[in-house]
C-alpha cells in the first residue's frame, strides 16, 4: 500500500550528499529501514532523512534544493 512520508523539519531538501554526486535514492529504488533518502539543511547542519519503513520508492514530491516545511510530503513509498 502506498504511503506518503513527510519532512520531519523545515529547511532545504537535498537528494544527494554533495553537488554532482548521484542521488541517495531514485524513483523505483528499493528502500530498507535506515536508508538515507535525502538531507534537510537548516541552521548550518544537514539532517539525514532516514527511512523508518521498507518498501519501494514510488515518487518524490519535492525536487532537489526545494524549500520544505515540516510535515510536507517528501516521497511516496509502496510498503
Amino acid at each position, binding site marked *: 500500500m502506498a504511503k506518503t512520508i*513527510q*519532512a*520531519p*523539519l*523545515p*529547511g*532545504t531538501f537535498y537528494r544527494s550528499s554533495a553537488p554532482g554526486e548521484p542521488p541517495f535514492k531514485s524513483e523505483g529504488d528499493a528502500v530498507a529501514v535506515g536508508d538515507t533518502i535525502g538531507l534537510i*539543511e*537548516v*541552521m*548550518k*547542519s544537514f*539532517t539525514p532523512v532516514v527511512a523508518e519503513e521498507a518498501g519501494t520508492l514510488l515518487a518524490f514530491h519535492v525536487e532537489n534544493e526545494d*524549500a520544505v*516545511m*515540516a*510535515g510536507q510530503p517528501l516521497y511516496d513509498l509502496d510498503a
Partner: protein
Amino acid sequence: MAERSFEVVKPGLATTVQDLGRPGYYHLGLPLSGAMDRFALIAANRLVGNPDGAAGLEAVFLGPELRFSADALVAITGAELPPKLDGVEQPLWSAFAVKAGQVLSFAFLKGGARAYIAIAGGIDVPEVLGSRSTYALGALGGFEGRALKAGDVVPLGAPTGTGREGASLPKEGRRPAQESGVEIRVVPGLYWHRITEEAQAGFFEDTWKVAPEADRIGYRFRGGKKLDFVPRQQPFGAGSDPSNIVDSCYPYGSIQVPGGTEPIVLHRDAVSGGGYFMIGTVISADMDLIGQLQPHQPVRFQSVTLDEALAARAVEKARLAKLGELI
C-alpha cells in the same frame, strides 16, 4: 539518576536549556543568550507556577523525546509543536501533568520555529554568571555548555507548588505564529549614510526570505536587491570591502549586511563586535518574533523612529503585564 529529572531519549535538532539570559557581559564578548522568544518562555513558566526567569528548554524545529523520572507539571508554548504524552496529544499553552515514567514527545512542527518547555521547579543546572542559559558557541552554561544529547539526565528543581494542572493561556493572550505578512520594525542606524538613497529605499521595499542557516547567533535573510554603497576611501583600520567599517560594537538586534548582499540580524548568541557596517537595529519588541521565523519565510523590514520603537516596547510590556490576569 537525580531524584527529579528527565532523561533525553531523542534530543531533537538543537534543544538547549535557556532562561531569560545573561545580560551584563556583552562588553567582554559574552552575549545575552537566553530564550529567543522571551514572551513564550515567561508564559510557559507562569503556567507551571515558576518564576519568570526559571530555566526551561528551547526546542527548535524538531521536538525532543524526554522520559520523566518523577511526576511533573509541564507547559509548552511558542511554536506550534504539538506535545504528546505517551503518544497522546496534549494542548499547547496549557499546564498538563506528567507521571513518573511517562515520555513527552512532539508531532511535526505546524507553525513558528521555537517551542518552550517549562517544567514546574525549572531545570536545575548550575548558574554561570547569573544565568542557566546555554551559550553553545562558548561552551558555557546550560547542560554542560551544549545542546542536549540522547542519554543526558537533566536535573529538575523543586516546584513552588503554585502551578496547577489545566491552567491555560487564552488565545487572545498568545502570539500565534505568523505565516505571511511578517513585518520587522527597524530603527535606521549609525551607518545608514553608507548606502545610496536607492539602496535605502530598496531595503524597506524588498521582500526578504529567511536563509536556512539562520540560528541563535544571527538571523540571515536573502532575496532582496544588493545594497549599493556611497563611494569613499576606506578609513584606516577598516577592511577593503565597502561594507567594512573600523571595528565597532554590535548591538543586540543590529543588522549587518556583509558585502551588501544578505542582512543578518544579530540575536541572543551573537558576537559583540566587528568590522561590518550596520544598517540599523531591530526594535526590542520584535526580537521575539524573529525567533519564531522559519527558513524561507518571507518578511519585510519597516522603518520606524526611536519614539515609535519605544511606544512598541511599552505595548509589549503591557502584554506581559496582562499575562498575570489571564493565567
